[in-house]
């Protein structure tokens, strides 16, 4: 028997046995954001797997049509959670995207947008410059002006999305740095190394500070390894496998020196990609074993805290909190219960459900920048569902979701990372003050 990969090349094509797991039952359809928006079979998990299957058999080519339907996938993996047959769509998607990157040239516009995104986001220094522009843009009243003159409406959708996502940050917080080491309060239980993130450390320095404080209060010595670069999550999820692998190697080098028991992430997307390093570097003899060890040591901060018996007393916070599941936490890392349990353990907190909770908010890494139209519809839908629950506070454990949901909220509801609520509760200060 001759083994062929049909239209795919021989470098890690989607595996036949994984494609065969799909029995075409359609249970994934209602969980798929793009299917919810358009209702087209090709933009559903079942349809995408069908296209991969046909390509693997060589019955359809790898072309713009196919790429369009794989590009339109947010990678939210809600379908993996919904699937009764255990189809590993995450693996199929990860195998298919690099193939399309290699074989299907992108349009000029798409190429430019992606190049710009990848030239800025993974680099905190450049990100800081971009954010600084954002602050000036707001401060000087340019935002109000461009909106009033209707200039924003005439921008290309991708730029309009970037403009809308700019969060209101303070210049001071843009330059906030975490100390290299935060000592554990009381007897040390663990030594943890914290990933600062790229956009995270620039736009959400407060969340990092709160993370370090809470971990320390719970008896963790927190180290923040010097010179840590991007984890490669954006590249990995966009099918840029080689770039992602290079970033993974460098991050492993950096973090191994910290000699920590646990590597902690507070961004769902980063955490999920670091947990995949073993798979990403499986073919690299110099790194395979180290990557496996590293991946096994990664925890989301809510996951780690749920494993530790609470030590620091919690002070009451009276608030109705809507917890929004970040896809890369709930689906990719299967962490749903832990952040909810942590929040429920704070006296006074009432957790409320959001309708269509399983539906992605449209952030999805760089999705809201490269697929702005679908992302906007999903963002509006999520914001409406959240507003209907009438919460005092919205909590979600991912930088991308925080930006995306904020953009579409009609009312000014505080949006926080769950760790900020915990931080405020442990310190016994009101949530608004803790975030200052």
């Amino acid at each position, binding site marked *: 028997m001759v083994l062929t990969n049909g239209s795919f090349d021989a470098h890690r094509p989607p595996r036949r046995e994984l494609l*065969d*797991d*799909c*029995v*075409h*039952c*359609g*249970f994934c*359809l*209602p969980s798929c954001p793009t*299917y919810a928006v358009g*209702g*087209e*079979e*090709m933009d559903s998990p*079942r*349809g995408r797997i*069908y*296209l991969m299957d*046909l390509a693997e058999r060589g*019955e*359809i080519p790898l*072309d713009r*049509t*196919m790429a369009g*339907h794989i590009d339109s996938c947010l990678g939210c993996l809600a379908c993996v959670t919904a*699937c*009764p*047959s*255990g*189809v590993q769509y995450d693996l199929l998607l990860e195998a298919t995207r690099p193939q399309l990157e290699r074989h299907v040239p992108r349009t000029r516009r798409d190429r430019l947008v992606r190049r710009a995104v990848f030239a800025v986001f993974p680099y905190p220094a450049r990100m800081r410059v971009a954010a600084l522009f954002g602050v000036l843009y707001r401060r000087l009243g340019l935002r109000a002006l461009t909106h009033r003159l209707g200039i924003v409406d005439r921008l290309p959708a991708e730029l309009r999305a970037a403009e809308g996502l700019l969060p209101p940050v303070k210049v001071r917080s843009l330059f906030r740095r975490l100390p290299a080491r935060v000592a554990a309060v009381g007897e040390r239980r663990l030594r943890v190394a914290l990933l600062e993130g790229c956009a995270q450390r620039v736009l959400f320095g407060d969340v990092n500070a709160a993370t370090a404080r809470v971990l320390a209060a719970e008896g963790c010595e927190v180290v923040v390894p010097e010179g840590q670069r991007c984890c490669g999550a954006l590249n990995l999820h966009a099918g840029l496998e080689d770039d992602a692998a290079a970033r993974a190697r460098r991050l492993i080098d950096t973090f191994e020196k910290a000699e920590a028991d646990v590597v902690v992430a507070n961004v769902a997307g980063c955490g999920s990609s670091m947990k995949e390093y073993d798979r990403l570097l499986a073919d690299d003899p110099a790194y395979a074993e180290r990557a496996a060890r590293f991946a096994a040591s990664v925890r989301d901060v809510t996951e780690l805290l749920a494993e530790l018996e609470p030590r620091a007393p919690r002070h009451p916070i009276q608030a109705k909190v809507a917890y929004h599941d970040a896809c890369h936490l709930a689906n990719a890392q299967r962490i749903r219960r832990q952040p909810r349990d942590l929040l429920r353990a704070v006296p006074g907190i009432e957790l409320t459900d959001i309708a269509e909770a399983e539906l992605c908010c449209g952030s999805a890494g760089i999705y809201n920048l490269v697929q702005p139209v679908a992302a906007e519809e999903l963002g509006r839908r999520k914001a409406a569902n959240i507003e209907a629950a009438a919460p005092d506070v919205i909590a979600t454990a991912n930088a991308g979701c925080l930006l995306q949901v904020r953009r579409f909220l009609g009312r000014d509801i505080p949006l926080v990372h769950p760790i900020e609520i915990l931080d405020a509760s442990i310190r016994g200060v009101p949530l608004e003050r803790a975030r200052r």
Partner: protein
Amino acid sequence: MSWAAELTEVLGRENVITDPARLRTYECDGLTGYRVVPAMVVLPRSAAEVAAAVGVCARHGVPFVARGAGTGLSGGALPVADGIVISLQRLRRIVEVDPVNLRAVVEPGVTNLDISKAAAPYGLYYAPDPSSQQVCTIGGNVAENSGGAHCLKYGFTVNHVLAAEVVLADGTVTTLGGDSPQLPGYDLLGAFIGSEGTLGIVTQVTVRLLAKPAAVRTMVADFATVAGAGDAVTGIVAAGIVPAAIEMLDNLAIQAVAASTQSVYTLDTVAALVVELDGPPDDVAEQFEQVQEICRAHGCTKVLVAEDAEQRALIWTGRKAAFAAVGRISPDYFVQDGVVPRGRLAEVLGRIAAMADEAGVRVANVFHAGDGNLHPLVLYSEAAGEHDRAERLSTEIAELCVELGGSLSGEHGIGADKACSMPRMFGEDDLATMLRLRSAFDPGGLCNPGKVFPTPRLCGERPGRYRPHPLEEAGVIERL
């Protein structure tokens, strides 16, 4: 203008699909054993657009097939070559929930479960619950007269639809049924429900809503023999108890469920019954004890009583995901849907097991035992060349059900899958009568052709002397 150009003009370019690769994703529904690539897929956004699309088809003689979520298990949404597929996935509005009159008006692309979700704030729900209820649409439910675990007590789709706005084969829009529960004249709505898309396309449905029962109790009873479980079912019904549901899973099905979800089923039991009772708390409590006694009397080895809503949900999640979960223990499968008289459950299961052994194919059973509605899953591997053998066994099982005094299909429909077996169940007169009804709605034969009724192309030309087609005998068509 060609029909394709006309459809594109009527619906807009963004609402038609003609690209060959995209079309292929529509070539089958939940039954993947049959595949046909349509010439075009259209996605209308309103009933008016559905009517316009059908109108174009009628003028040009183009066959059309309506499609909901594509979860059907009898190939009912299998496309027709050179025909179009009309997807109703963009008609997903819940038009109205009317808690006073206990009804809801919804578009056909709304999922079965979303109706119950919309009714939940009023303490109401929509009763028929196909296992695929989270994804299957009400339009498809109407076409197939879908059932579900709780139809034992509450009846099928036909018992819960008050009215349907439909587009007929010539593009006319009309409403069947109405607000009053009883209408004079022929029950055309009744004829339409379960017609498998052969009489027209439903574009709006008015469904009946029920108040949620005051109490619900659920148990899983394990049995050491399939016959014991079958006899317990007969015993429960004979005792005058009408449970909300009685479901049976055999060992192979339980293994599949365990591989898929957090399973509450005993992994090594030969068979298990899920029994659910609902109604006034006192009645439920009393009958729940009775059912346990009956199970014990028939050799039940263990009873698990759901302690809370969460555990009950786990029991049902496992049961409802069972078909798809079978994907974990077999690459491909056929699902049958035959019905037998309840008293013959043990007998038919024994015969199916023997037939499976003989064919060298595994068969898993997970089904609505209370209704006698079997769902044997014939497991096979396409890659290993077992398709034909499995398909033959699958057909034999359906025909065995007829032989035992039952039916080819309980709720999945005849579709493309069982059309060739129809003459086993109905005489030529019966089929001719049905065809006359069909022709009254769709004289041109454009609505989902090739389904339900046997056709020579579908079933293979049988050699031998000329036999008149049932339609010819009925005087509907002539031989040229």
